[in-house]
């Protein structure tokens, strides 16, 4: 869907300031921008429809590549290796809610905080009948030592070449310098019910996803 530029259709974002700021429509500054809110450090919830007050985008700034996975859609299946080198498919989880969280890198401070927060709330996710899957571009051995070091009870998948990240259209931060931190909640039918993006408040991913899971 490329004809309409909306809140959910963008692949790259510009972060003009490192200081936390409330979500607001951003004026695009390059050809990779789209009209409305982008990945921000302070969090962006895509479960709401695009605001009518979003600023219109000059046609020269419309992105030619759009996010392929939006709320209400069934994301494309993938098969990736887990921390033990085993192939794991998303399709295997159909029939139960799944939290798929994409993060930049094992061992980085924010990714560690996020993983540990998922770990600490894992019982709540299990109680909601949900599985948690973490995905980054690191290889299986990196995932294995990351999972072992922090006693992570959930699956970490290795997205070699960041293929799935690109396929799902997860926006980057800082003019493409950082892979975005974005979490999807899929319901039992495999339909996306929440997309939450927040690069530097990683613990909020857990709060937002649990909030939604409890309403499913």
């Amino acid at each position, binding site marked *: 869907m490329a004809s309409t530029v909306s809140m959910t259709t963008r692949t790259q974002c510009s972060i003009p300031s490192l200081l936390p700021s409330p979500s607001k429509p951003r004026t695009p500054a390059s050809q990779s921008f789209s009209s409305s809110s982008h990945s921000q450090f302070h969090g962006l919830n895509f479960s709401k429809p695009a605001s009518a007050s979003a600023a219109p985008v000059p046609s020269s700034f419309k992105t030619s590549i759009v996010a392929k996975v939006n709320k209400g859609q069934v994301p494309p299946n993938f098969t990736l290796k887990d921390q033990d080198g085993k192939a794991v498919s998303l399709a295997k989880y159909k029939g139960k809610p799944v939290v798929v969280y994409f993060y930049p*890198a094992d061992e*980085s401070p924010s990714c560690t905080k996020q993983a540990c927060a998922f770990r600490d709330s894992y019982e709540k996710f299990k109680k909601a009948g949900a599985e948690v899957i973490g995905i980054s*571009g690191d290889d299986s051995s990196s995932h294995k030592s990351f999972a072992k070091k922090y006693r992570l009870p959930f699956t970490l998948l290795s997205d070699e*070449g960041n293929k799935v990240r690109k396929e799902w259209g997860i926006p980057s931060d800082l003019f493409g310098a950082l892979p975005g931190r974005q979490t999807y909640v899929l319901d039992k039918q495999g339909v996306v019910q929440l997309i939450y993006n927040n690069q530097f408040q990683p613990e909020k991913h857990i709060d937002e996803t649990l909030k939604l899971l409890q309403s499913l």
Partner: protein
Amino acid sequence: MSSLQHHKFLSRSPGQGFHHHHRVIPIRYATSITTITCTLIKDNPNSNHLVSQPQRVSRAPPVIPLTANDPGLKSTWSHRGWVATGCATVLFSLAKAAVGAASVHIWLEPVLAGYMGYILADLGSGVYHWGIDNYGDASTPGFGSQIEAFQGHHKWPWTITRREFANNLHSLARVVAFSVLPVELVCSDPVVLGFVGMFSGCIMFSQQFHAWAHSTKSKLPAAVVALQDAGVLVSRGQHADHHRPPYNNNYCIVSGIWNDLLDRNKVFEVLEMVVYFKLGVKPRSWSDPNSAWTEDEDAEITI
């Protein structure tokens, strides 16, 4: 390991980067050496697939002197000479700024420029400190000796309080002398000179501020304590946080005024992520510190 390399920990403070001592200190040496070198595979920009492992070269920590009178902590005439040169350079810059300002009847702009020099020196000290603490090792060209010195400082932070004044400052003083003198010879603008003088002076004395931040309150002059409490100089508490796990905050050591802003907004974390994704190098702070960096709390100093 040679006596010279042992001596590196004994004779060099974190501010010393380019000066090598060659005096032998009669102490016993560790007899076992452990070296671990891992392969660092940089990011392939085509695949965006990162396979990197931390590069570690750990050596058996050298035995350190346990006396306050160790020669490695004393100032030499060479140290004093460089500190005197550095101070003269800074004072000349400030004096020339004052004379220039008086001649054109301005004062606010040079004073403001000087203030900006003080403010930005704190930021500069933090960025440099962050780089040295997280990247490279003893074999890094140009910076290896400083990285090693900072490693030694993290292992024995109290040593800096035992260094004599010129011993602590001479390396920074030399850098200031070489970099500032050309500027003040060609430039007569009082605003520029005011900034340069204050910036370089604060950088040169940052090692002294750093040493004071490691001292106990009872051993410091009342004026220094007052300046620390007022936030003019980096405080003991703020800098102590830097020496506690996860060792990734409070990098600034002039006034520390930037520390809260930089840490609250995760500026260094952002930089670390960018460096990692662009160059494939993980900072040391992402891993548990090895014994070479962890404070040796068992080491005692005797007087």
